[in-house]
């Protein structure tokens, strides 16, 4: 990559940080750049400090990085907190109506409603659209793309608002341009196919819709809410039943009921809410009802850091619910994986009649990545439900070799569908028979044998002969990948192994990927190395060292590289 720009936009909650970063990111992608964004926000609605970082390059990006080239400070606090991070060649754009101490020793550009759009009542719009324009000016990108984007976005708000935005963008652009082009994106060529900018949870919402989702229930909880919202916003158009439940118990209960009666159902939550769902995990497993459940992780224990990121719920989700019961557990590392694994989750749930979990986190949920349409292949929705007349008596839980019994729906024919959370006979009625119990428990757990054949999700990258292997899972993919790339660029041979399909544990694939690893370093977003414990438990292999992070912020290549010092 020849260009690698980090734009940090910060302010108090409510000041319009998103209003700057959303159009800016899109405009840059439309221009042809690769963009990667992250969001960093507190558990409050107004005030405090939040920021988004937009990283821009001419080459594909998979991770945030440290350092700031353009700092947009909507208030004094932002300037105070991030001034140090700005590179010497960097520039500070600030809202002069809010920032009282002008930044010194660095190039800067003051914006304010008065200077960007004098004599209007545009207020925040002036600074927001103005800052967007100014940044494009600074990086030598024409403003036209941004203007049409703002027109699309604010069209519904009437001509005055559109006009303000347009004018502010243009004025800002000029102000930026006048500063010269410390960073130029002018040479970036438009790609043959347009690219898109999409966040992890958005990609999963599309995956769910593509996979035929027609029922979603949930209860708000950060960071799960963004997925729930992304689906709900599209529900009317695509015919999805959406219900906000009274609590997570009901959210999961409704999803199981809906699935039992024939919906392609999904629910989700974050750790605290998942606690309340665990009883129903067992219900789904016992009644063999398909279900997709997303657990968007955040740091705990308990309420913890509600708006931050974590990879701390792996073991919890894996073992949630009493006694042994079958399930699958996936953890995407990129939006493209998010899409594909959501589709896969629906398919596995349907065919194996089990709950399938997808673990995400705030970093994955909110980070936008530049993708192409090829990352989102079309899906053929297939139902595994049996309709039509049956031969002989219908048994919902007929014992089969695969553990999967033909599934019918109640109300679609004379066959009665009897489901029970107690141990039951093949026809679904409660039993305490010892032999039946063993047969049923075996049958349910037998599904794992088939399932494990369908899992893999091991991504290996880097040099086969490298002495060092970085092992990671889920959302750490990007930062680890960039770490690898940077090391390889320095001619340090290194490998990475990333897992995105975690249960039933793909022992063979993982063992194969790790068998020649000389030294394994686990990289995980929790304090104890949960994947590493799972790895050892399942394969006997264990990492030589762990690089852990549990401060609620995502990994960066810089963090990993620093921790690797002396290890390579």
């Amino acid at each position, binding site marked *: 990559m020849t260009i690698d720009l980090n734009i940090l936009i910060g302010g108090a909650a409510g000041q319009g940080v998103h209003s700057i970063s959303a159009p800016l990111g899109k405009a840059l992608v439309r221009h042809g750049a690769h963009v990667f964004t992250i969001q960093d926000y507190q558990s409050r609605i107004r005030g405090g400090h939040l920021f988004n970082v937009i990283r821009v390059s001419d080459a594909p990006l998979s991770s945030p990085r440290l350092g700031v080239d353009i700092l947009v400070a909507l208030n004094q606090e932002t300037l105070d907190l991030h001034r140090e991070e700005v590179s010497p060649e960097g520039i500070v754009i600030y809202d002069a109506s809010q920032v009282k101490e002008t930044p010194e020793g660095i190039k800067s550009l003051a914006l304010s409603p008065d200077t960007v759009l004098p004599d209007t009542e545009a207020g925040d719009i002036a600074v927001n659209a103005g800052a967007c324009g100014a940044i494009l000016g600074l990086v030598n990108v024409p403003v036209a793309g941004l203007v049409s984007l703002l027109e699309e976005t604010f069209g519904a708000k009437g001509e005055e608002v559109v006009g303000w935005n347009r004018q502010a963008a243009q004025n800002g652009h000029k102000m930026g341009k006048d500063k010269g082009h410390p960073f130029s994106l002018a040479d970036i060529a438009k790609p043959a196919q347009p690219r898109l900018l999409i966040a992890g949870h958005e990609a999963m919402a599309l995956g769910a819709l593509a996979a035929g989702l027609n029922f979603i229930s949930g209860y708000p909880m950060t960071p799960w809410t963004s997925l729930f919202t992304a689906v709900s916003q599209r529900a009317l158009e695509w015919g999805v039943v959406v219900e906000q439940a009274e609590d997570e*118990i*009901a959210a999961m*209960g409704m999803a199981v*009921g809906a699935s039992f*009666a024939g919906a392609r159902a999904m629910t989700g939550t974050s750790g605290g809410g998942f606690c309340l769902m665990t009883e129903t995990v067992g219900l789904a497993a016992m009644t063999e009802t398909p279900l997709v459940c997303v657990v968007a992780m955040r740091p705990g224990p308990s309420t913890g850091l509600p708006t931050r990121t974590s990879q701390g719920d792996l073991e919890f989700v894996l073992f949630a619910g009493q006694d042994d019961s079958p399930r699958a557990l996936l953890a995407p590392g990129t939006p493209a994986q998010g899409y594909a694994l959501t589709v896969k989750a629906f398919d596995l749930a349907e065919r194996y009649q089990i709950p399938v979990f997808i673990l995400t986190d705030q970093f994955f949920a909110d980070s936008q990545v530049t993708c192409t349409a090829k990352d989102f292949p*079309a899906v053929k929705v297939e139902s595994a439900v049996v309709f039509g007349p049956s031969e002989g008596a219908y048994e919902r839980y007929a014992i089969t070799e695969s553990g999967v019994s033909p599934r019918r729906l109640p109300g679609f024919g004379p066959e009665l569908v009897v*489901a029970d959370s107690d141990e039951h006979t093949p026809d679904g009625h409660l039993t305490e028979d010892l032999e039946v119990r063993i047969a049923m428990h075996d049958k349910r757990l037998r599904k794992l044998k088939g399932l494990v054949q369908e899992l893999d999700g091991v991504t290996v990258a880097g040099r086969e002969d490298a002495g060092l292997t970085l092992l990671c899972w889920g959302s750490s993919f990007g930062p680890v990948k960039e770490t690898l790339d940077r090391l390889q660029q320095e001619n340090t041979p290194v490998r990475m192994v990333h897992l995105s399909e975690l249960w039933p544990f793909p022992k063979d694939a993982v063992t194969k990927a790790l068998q020649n690893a000389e030294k394994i370093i686990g990289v995980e977003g929790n304090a104890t190395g949960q994947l590493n414990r799972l790895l050892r438990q399942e394969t006997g292999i264990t990492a030589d060292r762990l690089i852990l992070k549990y401060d609620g912020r995502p990994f960066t290549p810089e963090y990993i590289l620093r921790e690797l010092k002396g290890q390579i």
Partner: protein
Amino acid sequence: MLPIEMYQGIESAWCPGCGNFPMLKAFKQALAELEIRPENILVVSGIGQSSKFPHYVKCNTFNSIHGRGLPAATGCRLANPNLTVVVTAGDGDQYGEGGNHLLATFRRNPDITLVVHNNQVYGLTKGQASPTSEQGYQTPIQPKGVPYPPLHGLALAVAQDCSWVGRGFAGMVDHLKELYKQAINHRGLALLEVLQPCVTFNKVNTFKWYQERVYKVEESPDYDPENELWAYQKAKEWGPRIPIGVIYKNPRPIFEESFAVLAEGPLARQEIERPISKLLEDFY
């Protein structure tokens, strides 16, 4: 009328003489008279003696977990609005563990018949207090008796605008059968609480005890089930006289109607076509 034998389920595990038996009889009779075939009814339950009910009726069954019949049933209605959905719950199940779903379901008003088997005790776990146990009722956990008064399920229902509220008594099968029929025919949430003596554990609220107290509220001269205040008072009447019958009728739109997609019938029968190119449009 369909033959009642059509609804024969598996053999029951209830105690001889249990108030659940006459309920079972009344329920089957009601189905037969309403001519609802086994395959068109879905009975959902939680866990408890009362929650074994659907196994003893030939029907589609979702025997879920303790306290959680309503969410599952609501999900079923939202997936297939053609199903006649009945929830059979215990007083502990619904007023104890599942109380939060009750509150929310009153608001939603799905087309579900919710039958609460009120035996004023936890039967299946051997005689602990339920939320409707009388103050002073002695149990293994409270040898000095339950220290506070019982929950008023029907009054909560009226206060929360439940669209149909009634009470039956297991000792009056015909009257109960008519209540089942009305509750099932009602479009919207029908809460039917049934006084169901537990002959094993509840030695206070026996068949006789109820028999001496219940009266048919529809025979009262001031019977006025569409009047909220009247209904509220009847819902709270519990003492020397206990009303049975239809207590409140408050027709309201059902929740399922707010989903356009359900107007086209069960979700499982609908074609799903979502071109990914269209889905991606927002992100360019």
